[in-house]
């Protein structure tokens, strides 16, 4: 379209550039601060260009934050949540969309409602369940008067405990359901005419077709799991089970009071924590944006 609006265009460019400064400058400052020594980082105003202490700061904070172990933990959790979610979500959505049974809408709603209550608002009782994952069943047996003593299954300080509650949500199921609904009925019917049963159809047709969705969901789930904070804070007490995000709380003194943090190291730790999901998102941005929008909650 031919449209001559020079003033407006200039304004647009200025706004966009300002937006870039606002949204990206903080990340840059974190990086810059993590490359200076203690004295420089506390100087006012802060230099805007990186210094030379990058390696020193990072190796120091790597040790104090136990990032070798905690980043590994975060990675295990993030991958566990991502894989678990993709598997469970695709299977449950497959069941809901492609099978005919009376309870399918009931099941859909049972799963769907979990979107409404994020983990954080039901954190206390979820913690109680995590201390013995079989307690709901024990309780129910007790009510029913069945004398069975289930063993305790304590999830505190375990990968399972870090992962499972995060998998128990509907985002993925919903995303997959939306996608499956766009697949024409005839495709499933053609597969049946070709002699393929449900599992075969799932593996040969649905999974390859949902590759994009899978990539999107994987990105979203990776970021979501890596960035968990309150839940790992609660259920991990052992040092070797901490995640990277919770380390931030440990390497700075209490919020705003007492000693100010050692900023250069604190910023190095911050960057370590923010880098992996940021890289994943940048790398996967094409699918991520599409998937996030399709999720539409």
């Amino acid at each position, binding site marked *: *379209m031919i449209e001559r*609006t020079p003033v*407006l265009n200039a304004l647009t*460019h200025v706004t*966009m550039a300002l*937006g*870039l400064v606002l*949204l990206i400058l*903080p*990340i840059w400052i*974190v990086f810059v*601060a993590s490359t200076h020594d203690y004295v420089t*980082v*506390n100087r006012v105003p*802060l230099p805007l260009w990186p210094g030379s202490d990058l390696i020193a700061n990072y190796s120091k904070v790597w040790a104090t934050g136990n990032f070798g172990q905690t980043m590994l933990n975060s990675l295990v959790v993030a991958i566990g949540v991502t894989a678990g979610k993709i598997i*469970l979500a695709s*299977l*449950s959505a*497959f*069941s809901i969309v*492609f099978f005919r049974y009376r309870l399918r809408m009931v099941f859909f709603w*049972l*799963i769907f409602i*979990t979107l409404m*209550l*994020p983990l*954080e*608002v*039901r*954190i*206390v*009782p*979820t*913690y*109680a*369940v995590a*201390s013995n994952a079989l307690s709901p069943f024990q309780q129910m047996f007790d009510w029913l008067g069945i004398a069975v003593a289930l063993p305790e299954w304590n999830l505190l300080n375990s990968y399972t405990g870090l992962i*499972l509650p995060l*998998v*128990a949500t509907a985002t993925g199921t919903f995303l997959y359901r939306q996608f499956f609904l766009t697949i024409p009925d005839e495709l499933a019917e053609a597969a049946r005419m070709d002699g393929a*049963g449900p599992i075969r159809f799932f593996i040969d047709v649905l999974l390859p077709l949902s590759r994009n969705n899978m990539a999107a969901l994987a990105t979203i789930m990776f970021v979501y799991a890596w960035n968990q*904070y309150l839940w790992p*804070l*609660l259920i991990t007490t052992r040092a070797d089970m901490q995640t990277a*995000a919770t380390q*931030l*709380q440990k390497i*700075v003194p209490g*919020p*705003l009071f007492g000693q*100010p*943090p050692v*900023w250069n190291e604190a*910023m190095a730790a*911050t960057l370590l924590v923010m880098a992996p999901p940021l890289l*994943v998102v940048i790398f996967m941005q094409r699918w991520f*944006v599409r998937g996030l*929008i399709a999720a*539409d*909650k």
Partner: protein
Amino acid sequence: MERRATFDNLWIAAALIAPQLLLVFVFFYWPASQAVYWAFTTQPPFGGSNEWVGLQNFQQIFADAVYWNSVVVSLVFAFLSTSLSIAMGLLLAVMVDRQLPGYSVYRFTYFWPYAIAAPAVGLAFRFIFAPDAGFVSAVNHWFPNLWNPALDGVDAMALIVIANAWKMAAYNFIFFLAALQAIPRTLNEAAAMDGAGVLRRVRDLQLPLILPTLFFLLVINITESFVDSFGIVDIVTGGGPARATELMVFKIYSDGFKGLDYSMAAAQSLVLMVMVVGLTFVQFRYVERRVHYN
């Protein structure tokens, strides 16, 4: 017409959905119903007998000025950070949607903050806005003691609002941009043929058409501000100074896990749940309408 479900092997269907249902039961429905149960009883943490107390827990929290403080703080926080992040996300999306030369660079970078964990955002902004170091402290050079979130509740609130809005602006940007790009090009051209200029089209065409997205984002932002902000508050202010930034989630956490008062925490959780579910319902109703719209 409703979709034909193609397969009817019940055992396979059940086996496929069972794991998800089991997880949801153990980690969602059970805890949620426990929360309700605890909210109406008093129970010592970890075992012991619990006693039915009816609405007593609620009476207690509603009579507590500290609790009301957390509600007010949450609402103020939600209102401020949501308005800020929505305004910013919308403005940037409208600009990028004009597709002037170079816009793809912005489109590529604007959503990065969304990928960053709340506590990392918190710590970064705590440094940038520190009163005696970092970036903003310069103002204290010219106006001594103008800015000090460690002592001034308003400053502290401003700090967490900015941190949260920064993260959410990126998120909002993606959704607004997607909604804008979903508007058919021909509509825009038709409006241009009708003589509407750029700004006029934003007002008369684009904004009304992305209204559903705006509404959806309002709900998401408010919910997130109730929930995800825990990481920011915990790292930046710890609820202080003088409870000026003590959000509801943060108070639930401190009562439940620091004060070990499960019943109080459960009653507060229940109130928060009702608020979040209420918001979500409003959103569903609107989403429903949006479907008819199309």
